[in-house]
């Protein structure tokens, strides 16, 4: 029997997709500039089905890609031409939620926000909150080590994953980590997080839950320049405060957000959102200090949310910023570089210069607290050559981030989009070590082939391309 026949024998009718019209939605992720036609898509509903599918791929040497909601912005869930897509959306059950233990055990297709919803009645929540949290899955979050506005204080997904059940590319099922916050032995669960599906498929994930903060204090400050807003962030840090979130939007992003959701933001060159959170007595004291710091930072206008509704209004504009930018331009690329916080000003200035040089507008929305930039490069895909120019500009921004001592990605992953830039950040030996690990766990190179590692699968000897 051939691969497809065996696959069809494993799954009930309707859960193996092979017709052109059925495959089309799976041809790309949220980075729609890349498209590949898979051989088939399977829709498993149970762990054992995923394991069987992976084993079948291994036997036949067919590459496979696990897929959550396909919201990756770096082509992470782009299919391999002629390969299998294992779409995990139907594995969306929260298997166990134990408020006393403060853990949730979930299937990989559970949507991020659903975990916090389920935990809410117990006063708990799941801290990592990518802007895509209403749609992206925990499996995708795990693969990408996803983040959000709260990473400085709470860390990224890796810190919130206690245990994983994984099927390796060779079809073996292993449990990594445990249910306690502490473990012994190598932190293999921690290592799996962020490997972008190259080392296997997560079948079941144990998450740590946190008590929902008791009080919030949300402040919006307007500035006459991006630089002044950036400096304010440094001043907040220097004061010894540790806010839950610090976000900046530039004028273009503010305009877009206003046009889209009418958040009622002040007119300004830059807006800074600072949110303190914690026990009410502590937040009260911190708020006094924050007021002083912001006053000294030269803010032209300061608003403080007096109610939960006002707090939500402040966040609404920020959260809508990405999609809102779509109103300003037919197409845009979301970039995701990181710089040391103290070099934000320098980075933004250079991005402004590059924007001029390339003749393309760049809107800036970013997680200022952790130096995570999200420049949105606006372009019109219908104009010949503009996409290429936009990609080139985005690439320049990434190289700039690495040059300043930062990273190619804070949360969106390397995928196919950024793998060409990996040698900017990592030395040959570093990349070869990643390849050796990949090779050892996946000798046939089947799991998410062609992602992350710039040379993988391109030559007879992995790594040859760096020589």
């Amino acid at each position, binding site marked *: 029997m051939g691969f497809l026949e065996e696959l069809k024998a494993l799954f009930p009718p309707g859960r193996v997709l092979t017709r052109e019209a059925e495959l089309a939605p799976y041809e790309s992720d949220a980075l729609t500039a890349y498209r590949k036609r898979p051989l088939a898509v399977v829709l498993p509903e149970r762990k054992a089905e995923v394991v069987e599918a992976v084993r079948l791929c291994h036997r036949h040497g067919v590459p496979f890609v696990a897929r959550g909601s396909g919201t990756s912005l770096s082509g992470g869930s782009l299919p391999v031409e002629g390969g299998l897509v294992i779409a995990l959306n139907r594995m969306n059950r929260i298997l166990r939620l134990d*408020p006393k*233990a*403060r853990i949730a055990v979930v299937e990989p297709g559970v949507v991020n926000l659903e975990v916090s919803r389920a935990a809410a009645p117990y*006063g*708990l929540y799941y801290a990592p909150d990518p802007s895509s949290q209403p749609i992206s899955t925990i499996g995708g979050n795990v693969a*990408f*080590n996803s983040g959000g506005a709260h990473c*400085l204080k709470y860390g*990224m997904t*890796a*810190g919130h994953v206690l245990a994983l059940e*994984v099927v*390796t590319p060779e079809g*073996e*099922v*292993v*449990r990594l980590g445990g249910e*306690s*916050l*502490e*473990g*012994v*032995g*190598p*932190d*293999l669960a921690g*290592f*799996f*997080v*962020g*490997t972008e599906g190259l080392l*296997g498929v997560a079948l079941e994930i144990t998450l740590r839950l946190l*008590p*929902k*903060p008791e009080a919030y204090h949300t402040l919006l400050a307007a500035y006459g320049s991006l630089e002044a807003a950036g400096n304010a962030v440094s001043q907040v*840090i220097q004061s*010894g*405060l*540790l806010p839950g979130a610090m976000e900046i939007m530039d004028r273009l992003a503010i305009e877009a957000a206003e046009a889209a959701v009418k958040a009622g933001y002040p007119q300004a060159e830059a807006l800074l959102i600072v949110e303190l959170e*914690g*026990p009410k007595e*502590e937040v009260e004291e*911190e708020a006094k200090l924050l007021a002083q710091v912001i006053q000294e930072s030269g803010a032209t206008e300061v608003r403080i949310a007096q109610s939960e509704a006002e707090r939500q209004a402040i966040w609404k504009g920020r959260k809508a910023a990405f999609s809102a930018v779509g109103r300003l331009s037919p197409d845009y690329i979301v970039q995701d570089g990181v*710089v*040391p*916080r*103290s070099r934000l000003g320098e980075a933004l200035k250079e991005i402004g210069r590059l924007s001029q040089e390339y003749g393309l507008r760049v809107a800036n929305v970013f997680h200022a607290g*952790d130096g995570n930039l999200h420049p949105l490069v606006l372009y019109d895909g219908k104009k010949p050559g503009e996409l290429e120019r936009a990609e080139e500009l985005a690439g320049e921004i990434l190289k700039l981030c690495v040059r300043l001592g*930062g*990273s190619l*990605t*804070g*949360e969106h992953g390397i995928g196919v989009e950024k793998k060409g830039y*990996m040698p900017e950040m990592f*030395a040959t030996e570093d990349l070869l*070590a990643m390849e050796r690990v990949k*090779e*050892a*766990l996946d000798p046939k190179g089947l799991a998410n082939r062609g992602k*992350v590692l710039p040379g993988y699968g391109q030559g007879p000897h992995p790594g040859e391309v760096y020589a």
Partner: protein
Amino acid sequence: MPEVRASSLEEVQEAVRTYPRLRPKGGGSKPALSTPKDGEALLDLSGLRGILEYAPEEFVFTAYAGTPLKEIEETLRAHGQYLPFHPPLVEQGATLGGTVAAGLSGPMRERFGGLRDFILGVRFVDGEGRVVRGGGKVVKNAAGFPFHRLMVGSLGAFGVMVELSFKVFPYPRATRSLRVGFAKTEEALEALEGLRTLPLDLLALDLVPPATLEIRLGGFPESLEKRIQRLQDLLQREGEVLLEDEAHWEGVRNLAFLKESPIWVKVPSRPDLIPMLEGLPLGPRRYLAGGELLYAGLDPEGLQALRERAIPHLVLRGKADQPLHPPPPEAFFAPIKRALDPRGRFPLG
């Protein structure tokens, strides 16, 4: 037993290429892990020390792996910062590399998380003498395979760590502690479980068997009084308030309570496991971090009991054939080990 000292990256590479089997040692505060076995050369890394970069406004530092934690903490403290995972055995000479390799966190891990939450990057020498870097030096980064997280608890299995980067946080302006006794373990446990799910932002929450809770708060002095009061109301007990609590918690994090015991172990715990653990013949002990982390002092009988019940644990001091129990899962661990240490120069596997 050959012994070699390395105080630079090149010397580490040289040592790795020279000796077929190596056992790295930082300060030696976890001798069950850092004492060479038959056929192993001791690689003394205590000379590989010094802070390489520290930018207080970034909340990030990079240091050589053999740097004593004491030195790091003093430097951080001068800028009002600290290692929030509060690593143990600082007074006994623990180094950054040894702490990562053993995967140890202390009582204040309760507030923001453990070692695994704060490590940002690593440079290490693999089993072939090659230098490999993973992670980075910024507080947020998702690029490439996270070799830095692989090092946590690795016992040196994948390579000799040379340089490590960490995130740090501002040290609380003031701290206060509350010690509350209960009549029975079950009552103390019930109170502990209640506190765990509330948004109280505790710096530390420890159960001292049989039935005492020790709770530490940090923050603005003005808020601490009110927060202590709230805790007392919640627990319906006055307890004992420690105003000068620093020395007490330093004793805890340096595991002073284990002093007399021949064997020291770390046991991943959970509140629901505590009644079972309390039934075992364990010596002096304390459940840290809301009951998630047990450090216990044992004699061989206690160790035997952990083994028989298949309770995961790591022996830090004292005689043990296999300090790590259980061994890591073969299907995932072995290939990674093979990739990074193909000749099996390093411990484990």
